[in-house]
């Protein structure tokens, strides 16, 4: 079996597993406790914050630890909404955001907020001028992802940040960085990002841990109230082992980024060129996209049928993002990119990781070829 679903969950670094294990044994004390054990746990969190701050080139007090990117995105969007309601009740986002952003916005919409969902071009990229045109005096926040989790398309964040701030300097800019970190350079300053979400398990860290960068001076209303952890913006006893392990994963994947990208790019390019040649398939990713995501459709064939066939041939792939793969509807992201219903229902995502080799790609190509040919003659697989 070959695993091609790194974008959903990457296997943790061995060092991360070891750190987690040791910390679970040694540091179970509550970091808020006054005794030595609590003080030590608090010191571990403090150090983790510094490590993450260095990796992102920000200040330690600008890092909040959360349970993952879903919480980070929810905290960024709803926390800003609650905090800055006095400035207005309007937000701008795109039609291709991850559900944790998209659904948070819909939730606000049901509570009377106006949300502008900007459509991307056919490549999945959002035109900065088009997005900036939506910004008004009462626009509290703009949320745009770095790399799309289904197609791997990369958003022009620097230009977006520039235009957003030019349109309204009070509008906060939130970047969902989950699929970009560790694969592409992260420059929060030049993006003019005020908020930035990360999830540890996409970076070969532990599950259940993530972070939110909150630019100094920006306040968020807490979604979880209680203790004064994370500057009062996220109550709850900290998960010390997961936080330390997450910091380690953030550091390691940041350090390995350029090497990993250099390895993945030729593999991805080869796969893209191969898929392009199969007349049955429609590519939804391009050479301009992220180095680890390849997405294609088999128009007319349900994605999950193709995925099951590939699994039978020893390839574990995903139908679009794991978060929505159990839904029967066509992909919202692909529809937004202008794909028709048939193509949007037949999507397969292949995401690469550091374990993959030329030989694996070769095997995958053979499997895809076989699956496509065998399904073509099986009428039962058709919709």
């Amino acid at each position, binding site marked *: 079996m070959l695993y091609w679903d790194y974008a959903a969950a990457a296997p943790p670094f061995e060092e991360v597993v070891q750190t987690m294990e040791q910390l679970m044994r040694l540091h179970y004390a509550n970091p808020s406790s006054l005794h*030595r054990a609590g003080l030590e746990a608090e010191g*571990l969190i403090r150090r983790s914050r*510094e490590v993450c701050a260095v990796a992102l080139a920000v200040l330690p007090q600008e890092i909040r630890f959360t349970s993952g990117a879903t919480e980070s995105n929810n905290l960024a969007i709803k926390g800003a909404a609650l905090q800055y309601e006095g400035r207005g009740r309007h937000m701008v986002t795109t039609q291709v955001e991850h559900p944790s952003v998209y659904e948070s916005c819909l939730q606000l919409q049901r509570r009377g907020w106006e949300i502008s969902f900007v459509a991307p071009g056919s490549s999945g990229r959002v035109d900065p001028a088009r997005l900036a045109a939506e910004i008004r*005096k009462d626009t509290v926040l703009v949320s745009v992802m770095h790399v799309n989790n289904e197609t791997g398309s990369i958003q022009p964040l620097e230009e977006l940040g520039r235009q957003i701030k030019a349109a309204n300097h009070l509008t906060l800019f939130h970047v969902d960085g989950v699929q970009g970190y560790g694969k592409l350079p992260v420059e929060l300053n*030049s993006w003019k990002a005020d908020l930035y979400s990360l999830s540890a398990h996409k970076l070969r860290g532990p599950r259940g841990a993530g972070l939110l960068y909150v630019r100094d*001076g920006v*306040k968020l209303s807490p979604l979880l109230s209680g203790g004064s952890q994370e500057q009062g913006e996220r109550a709850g006893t900290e998960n010390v082992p997961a936080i330390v392990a997450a910091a380690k994963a953030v*550091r390691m994947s940041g350090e390995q980024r350029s090497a990993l990208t250099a390895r993945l790019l030729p593999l991805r390019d080869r796969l893209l060129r191969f898929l392009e040649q199969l007349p049955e398939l429609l590519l939804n990713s391009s050479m301009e996209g992220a180095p680890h995501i390849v997405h294609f459709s088999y128009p007319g064939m349900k994605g999950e049928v193709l995925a099951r066939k590939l699994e039978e041939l020893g390839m574990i792939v995903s139908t679009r993002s794991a978060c929505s793969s159990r839904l029967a509807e066509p992909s919202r992201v692909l529809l937004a990119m202008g794909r028709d219903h048939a193509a949007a229902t037949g999507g397969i995502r292949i995401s690469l990781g550091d374990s993959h080799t030329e030989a694996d790609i070769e095997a995958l190509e053979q499997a895809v070829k076989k699956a496509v040919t065998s399904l073509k003659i099986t009428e039962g697989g058709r919709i």
Partner: protein
Amino acid sequence: MLDEHKRDAAGEGRHNIAYADMLLLRFGEFTLKGKNRARFEKTVLRHVKEMVKPYPKAAITKEFGRIYVELNGEPAAAMAQALKNVFGIASVSPVKAAPSELEAIIAVSRQLLEIIAPLQGTSFKVNARRVWKQFPYGSLEMNKLVSTPVLQGYPGLKVDMNHPDMELRVEIREERTYIFCESIAGVGGFPLGTNGKAMLLLSGGIDSPVAGWSSMRRGLEVECIHFYSFPYTSELARQKVVDLTRVLSQYAGVIKLHLVPFTEVQTAFTGIGQDNLIITLMRRAMLKIATRLAEREGALALVTGESLGQVASQTLPSMNVIGRATQLPLLRPLVMMDKIEIVEQAQLIGTYDLSILPYEDCCTLFVPKSPSTNPNMRIVDKIEATLPEYARLLDEAVEATETVSVTPYGNEKPRPLVSGQSALQEEWF
């Protein structure tokens, strides 16, 4: 726009200066000094360079009486925040640059005014300065040429040439024109370390960090001394002092912190049957130990956070008896300040939130029911002279003192007082 700006300023308590292309730093009072001026300026420039290090794209140029920091895309607000804390800097102005052409100057001036959005009724004047004499319009002419169109775009403003609420300054230079009207107050004072070195007695309370900052602002280099009485005081209290020193180090780079084990000395005073003098004796012992450390480190004064009348040991008779324990000048920057002023200052420099953490320190221990506000010098002398092995106790405290060098972004920790597994293993990160 107007309302938002007001709300932003009130809500976040900081200038919204994202528009700036550069920052203009002005020097403080040391420019009044003749001979040493160059040395002072050099020290400030070095300190500024240090603070700009995290922002690699920023470029510094120095001119007579001023420093320019070109932002080149680095964040204006964060940099201004850091630079206004450099000792010797009197003010920081966010500057917008325009090509040195009349039309461009007017356009940028209007743009700047729109961003700043002064309230209706704000009085206003334009103050142009033509450094580049080839520029076709004179300074006075420029005042009119710029103010007329700007005022037309902003009917709420009125002109006041003598005491305007707002002065739009236009400096015309050959390469470009600098336009600015805001000034963020800097901390002022003297460049760090230009007035010698002193030892600061740092308790962990609200006052002593403020005293330390005030001394640093007068150009003193400061080393901190903290007395702890484990197990009566916790390791947390000791860590808190490290953290306080770290805040001070944001203004100074590196600060040495001397941690003096004080339990033996302190408990020696409890058995003498003169409870009302314990505080006096304790404070004297601290000054004696601090004096020895000062001699060792080459410091020429002691600094304390004492403020007249705050507590029993800070009455004039107490201060008299306590102060005689040292030959060194005893500097008390806060001596005439009200508590409320000290608290405000602590909040400004960022030590307050740490200072109010509720850990015991050695000054709040063994406090007698009625400490003497008028101790008798003769009795105090006699007790100290007859206390068995008093000199040896003081020597041992100096001997066992641990020194930690604290940096703004470091993670320095004093040696643990109870042995146990070490908390932080760097390989975990």
